[in-house]
């Protein structure tokens, strides 16, 4: 038998009788399950999720659900086809035994796999002080249960809402509060909202947007403590500038934590940044060697990106979860020559303060920005990000229909600044520093250190920065 026909037979046998386990029952997990069936996998498929709910969509949770016009139960993701899977919902995966190829579950069950897809995503980073985070009225928003509770709290008419952190989610929630007519304060340690993702130039515009809408935005300020009444309900916040606020609802929007704990000890390249994988979604082991049977998709995946100097990038973008799931599914049921790379052009969107924000590429990879179309003053514009003379990202405010143009430029590493449009050119369309946070400034992110003195005690350790 020739090698080619042997491979074909192996693939056919696996598709007919293999066992695939997907850990993570959200967008990436569901779409991967569908893609597996779509592409001819007929074997046993198990989907494990720690939430009791069927896969649901998250973007509405920080917008329509909080506003109250979409019920949290109505965000279930549409099923694109029957997946005929064994759904193990409401039970978390707690461990991975790679030697015996088993996923260990919280209820003691062990699920056998031939191939595994890790799609456990991220969770909300809670407020740093656990005692304060547990107070009544202190929230994070990641799950539909979170959104249900926060929606109730907002609609109960709090005196003031405090939102800690002004990334996309925090800003969207501040926008919702304004719409609901609730007094809202946003604290942000950086110079402005969205600065991490889009830089200070856009941050200034976002800050004006918030203030114009009536948000009490306080930048360069941290929350030092949350204080409760006798009933254990949060009533006051103390800020680093000495101010105190009377608040009934506090939402921590401090980014996310990757759900990697269950992989501890499994010997994979997993940690703070996610699970490292190649562009074919195959997980790396702890030594940086690619595995053959373990795949990664969605928010937790961290892969080198050709457009961005092969840096390992993880993307918490809706599109990335879908396309990653499809590529992972394809590669799980094929061998070498039929495998394809996951080379997404990152895309993201946000809706806040009546403005539709859309972006493409990795804007924070750039160091310069140029307004290319429209009017920044009117908050209707397109802007491109550049690094070393090439375009690496773009963002639009109420100009989303132009995004395809910028996508094409980014895909072919076109020169920066891009050629000027034939009309509607902003005044002063010259590149300026994009003002991303200085990478030399320490952040909350833990750092890795080597400890021990002699070779036998040397080891790596994550340490939280103070």
């Amino acid at each position: 038998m020739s090698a080619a026909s042997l491979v074909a037979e192996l693939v056919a046998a696996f598709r007919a009788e293999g066992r695939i386990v997907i850990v993570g029952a959200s967008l990436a997990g569901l779409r991967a399950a569908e893609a597996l069936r779509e592409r001819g996998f007929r074997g046993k498929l198990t989907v494990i999720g720690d939430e009791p709910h069927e896969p649901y969509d998250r973007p509405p949770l920080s917008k329509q659900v909080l506003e109250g016009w979409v019920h949290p139960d109505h965000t279930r993701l549409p099923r694109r086809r029957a997946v005929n899977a064994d759904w193990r919902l409401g039970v978390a995966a707690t461990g991975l035994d790679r030697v015996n190829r088993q996923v260990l579950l919280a209820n003691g069950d062990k699920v056998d796999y031939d191939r595994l897809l890790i799609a456990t995503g991220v969770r909300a980073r809670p407020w740093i002080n656990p005692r304060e985070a547990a107070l009544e009225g202190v929230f994070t928003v990641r799950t539909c249960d979170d959104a249900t509770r926060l929606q109730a709290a907002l609609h109960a008419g709090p005196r003031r809402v405090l939102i800690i952190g002004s990334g996309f989610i925090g800003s969207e929630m501040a926008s919702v509060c304004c719409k609901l007519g609730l007094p809202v304060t946003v604290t942000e340690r950086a110079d402005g909202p969205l600065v991490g993702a889009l830089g200070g130039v856009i941050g200034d515009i976002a800050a004006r947007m918030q203030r114009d809408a009536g948000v009490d935005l306080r930048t360069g300020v941290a929350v030092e403590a949350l204080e409760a009444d006798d009933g254990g309900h949060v009533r006051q916040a103390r800020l680093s500038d000495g101010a105190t606020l009377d608040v009934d609802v506090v939402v921590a929007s401090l980014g996310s934590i990757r759900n990697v704990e269950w992989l501890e000890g499994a010997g994979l390249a997993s940690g703070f940044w996610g699970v490292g994988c190649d562009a074919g979604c195959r997980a790396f082991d702890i030594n940086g060697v690619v595995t053959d049977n373990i795949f990664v998709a969605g928010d937790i995946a961290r892969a080198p990106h050709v457009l961005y100097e092969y840096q390992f990038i993880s993307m918490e973008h809706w599109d990335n979860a879908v396309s990653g799931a499809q590529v992972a599914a394809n590669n799980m049921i094929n061998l070498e020559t039929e495998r394809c790379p996951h080379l997404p052009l990152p895309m993201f969107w946000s809706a806040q303060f009546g403005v539709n924000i859309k972006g493409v590429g990795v804007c924070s990879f750039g160091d310069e920005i140029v307004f290319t179309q429209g009017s920044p003053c009117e908050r209707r514009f397109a802007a491109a990000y550049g690094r070393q003379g090439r375009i690496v990202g773009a963002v639009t405010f109420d100009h989303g229909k132009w995004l395809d143009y910028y996508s094409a430029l980014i895909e072919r590493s076109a020169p920066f600044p891009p050629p000027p449009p034939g009309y509607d050119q902003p005044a002063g369309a010259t590149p300026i520093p994009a003002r991303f946070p200085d990478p030399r400034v320490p952040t909350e992110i833990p750092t890795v250190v080597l400890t021990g003195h002699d070779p036998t005690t040397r080891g790596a350790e994550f340490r939280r920065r103070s």
Partner: protein
Amino acid sequence: MTVETAWAEAMTYDNRADPYPFFAELRKTPVVQVADNLYVVTGYRELLALAHDPRISSDVRRSPLAAHLAGDAEPPAGVEDLQAHGGRQPSIIVSDPPNHDRARRQVMRHFGPPHSPDLIPSMEPGIVGLCNKLLDDIKARESTRFDVVDDYAYPVPVTMICKILGVPRADEPTFHVWIRDLLTGLDLGPDAATDEGRARAAKGRAAGAALRHYLAELIEQYRHQPGDGLLSDLVNDTEGPDGPMSPQEAVSNAQLLLVAGHDSTVNTISNCVMTLLRNPGSFELLRQRPELIPRAIEEVQRLQSAVQFFPSRSATDDIEIADTVIPKGAAVHLMYSAANRDPTRFANPDQYDPERPDNEHVGWGSGIHTCIGGPLARLEVNLTLETFLRRVQSPRLVDDPPPYRRSHIFRGPLHLMIDVDHITD
């Protein structure tokens, strides 16, 4: 065949029923120069790229087209009509940002979400009622032959756009003739150079002037005495961020919307009926599975794009695409009808497949000029087709191909005679 010949043949009235072989010929070079200062884009991906390229202008005042194609001081009627001179303001389809964006916002406030989310859905009972009444009338005539265009497809969108705009339906017979003459006179192909072509153009110019005069009076009236409908809302809007639209601009946009409601949707409905009857089994398929109707309509729009192209665009800079450089200042036709049959994008592109997966055609345009009336048109076509499928028994085409309207921009049957067994209640 040279590209110049292929282009001329595609634009000739004699080939109106089937210009597609000539588009296929042109598509061998997805972006190609067909005349001095004129480039046509027939490749799907190239068209999408240019539809989103801010170096392509839609402002007809920048296009060399009128002067170039007419070859003399007198531009063809329709093109002149699209232009803005003599105090005229361009409509949204022939203008660029920021004016385009502002005007589109002003119109959308009264036409769709988020400010007027109920307007289009609220038309549904009226559309269904009208469809049924039209079939009742045909049935009452006790004839088994009727014209799908005049007897059924035409009255629905016209009645609805009149209602939405606030144009008296009673005036329809008058402006119907104007719009017909206006579009008949709008010819950028070789037929324009004949004596008949020049006569049609002259008639079209007069009709365009009459239509504008009529709309200007109506709008002036609404300015002094606000009434129901988009035109009145448009010129009296003091709530929106952009204020009221100027009367001159409102006239241009009223003309655009009235023509689109008059023509494009009529053609789309007729194209749907024609395509279903041309393809054995598809009428029955949709009858049994009405949930396929929306997809079937999109597939018809892909195959028989009601707007084949719109001749206002030009390049504001040298643009390199598909091994061609479109020079600054050249006119650029984005041929939706040709791109929709690009075999590198759609498998078996000439075949009708109502269940076609991944049918992301450009029949409604793409980019900032994406059809503003698309949601209304989709509702109208859905309901007219659904009613037709339910009530019309065993329809057969009498002539195939049917006689076509003259326009190569808004392409569709002039008449579509069908024989039926009977019309049920």
